[in-house]
């Protein structure tokens, strides 16, 4: 969104890209480019975290193996997650308010209903269906397909 500060005509190119990406999902075109296909793993990670835990990022689904840049400290945190969080005052999966508290099921149910009434659920299902079809065409299992779109950068991003 840094573009907004710069444009002499007050345009937001970032918002235009956002609109085009949304359209490509609606029309199913996303499946035809490398960056578009990545939507599946983004959706599974982010929407999964939101619906299951109430957070966009959640430590028990953020794996060191997928994030080696986290370094030895990241590994240490993952291996000692509860103790580290306890040491610094988190309320990891605990009741009541606080850092990384367990968000009550009634609130997660509300988030799910919001997803349902605002089109997010339908969007997720569309991405899943189209992606699964592509994985089948390629003869890949779901896991193999996800691993491929998560890790492979072809340098020819448009195909």
């Amino acid at each position, binding site marked *: 969104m840094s573009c907004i*500060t*710069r*444009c*002499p*005509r*007050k345009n937001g190119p970032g918002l235009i890209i956002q609109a085009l990406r949304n359209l490509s999902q609606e029309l199913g075109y996303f499946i035809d480019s490398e960056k578009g296909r990545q939507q599946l793993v983004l959706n599974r990670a982010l929407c999964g975290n939101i619906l299951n835990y109430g957070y966009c990022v959640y430590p028990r689904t953020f794996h060191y193996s997928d994030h080696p840049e986290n370094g030895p400290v990241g590994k240490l945190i993952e291996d000692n997650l509860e103790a580290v969080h306890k040491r610094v005052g988190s309320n990891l999966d605990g009741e009541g308010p606080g850092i990384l508290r367990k968000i009550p099921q009634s609130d997660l149910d509300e988030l799910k209903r919001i997803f349902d009434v605002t089109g997010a659920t339908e969007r997720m299902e569309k991405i899943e269906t189209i992606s699964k079809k592509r994985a089948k065409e390629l003869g890949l299992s779901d896991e193999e397909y996800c691993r491929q779109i998560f890790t492979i950068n072809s340098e020819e991003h448009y195909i």
Partner: protein
Amino acid sequence: MTDRVLIIGGGPAGLEAANQLNLLGYKPVIVEKDDTLGGHLAKWDRLFPEGESAETVLYKLIKPVEHTPVYLNTIVEQADKEGNHFRVKLSGGKEEIVSAILVCAGFSLFPAEKKEEYGYGIYNGVITSSDLEKWFKTGKGVNINNPSKVGFVHCVGSRDEKICNRQCSKVCCVTAVKQACEIKEKFPDSEVFCFYMDLRMFGRKYEDLYLKAQNKYRVRFIRGRVSEVSEDFTGKVVIKAEDTLSSKPLKVSLDLLVLMTGMISNSSIEELSGILSLNRAEDGFIEPADTITKMYDSGKEGIFLAGAVTGPKTIPETLSEARASALAIHNYLSNKAIQ
């Protein structure tokens, strides 16, 4: 009684109109808010497209009107129409009774510090076209010491909706080309870059100057806006831009960055338009009654317009309009006399 005509503004438009009104047998009176005549021209060194001395041009405009009454450091405070005349109160307790008013209030330069991302007033190596012109003329104001790389940014405060100035200032493109050539004349070993959106070389001989800048002076014209300016560890100005013809982002370190500040409506026009009940357009300039056939007509009886008060103009255009306004005033006063 010979009709008196009040001219508001002693820049090129006001001076030329005064001369013409004198020749037509009227008694012009000039009111100038600053302490000298000449407006922006008095601060300029050389003029596009052929590098004529601004001082010589100003002399040619002032000499014929040297006996015309002038109020310096004076502004109009009130103007009341009384029959065929205007009773005009001026600052300092003075008063003039005149048959017509000619508004030649000119323009202001866009305050470059408003384009915050360019760092004017923050980074030492960032100056305006006006600062550079003053340095050409006097060697004062800014410190320019044998720069090896110089950049010019076109359209600073022009064609920019973000800062509420949509209009093209018309003269900055060719002024940048002129100044780029002058930099190369003074510092032949320097590299000069012009960052532009479009180059609007509309006037006669402008294209020649543009070609000279490329062929003789090797000025590099890059189509793309500078996005932001900063300063590196050595004090050099670092700019980011995009070369939109090659679709590549650029980062260039410069010794000097010149911002081509555009023309905006005169900072005093809000007050003056209120006093004279003149209409202003969305861009702040005075809106004439007819923008094609009568640019000089304010739409208010007895009040006329000339020069950049109605929008950005070159000096030749301003002078032509001043003559047209003088003639319009002559026609207006002649018709009055017959009635």
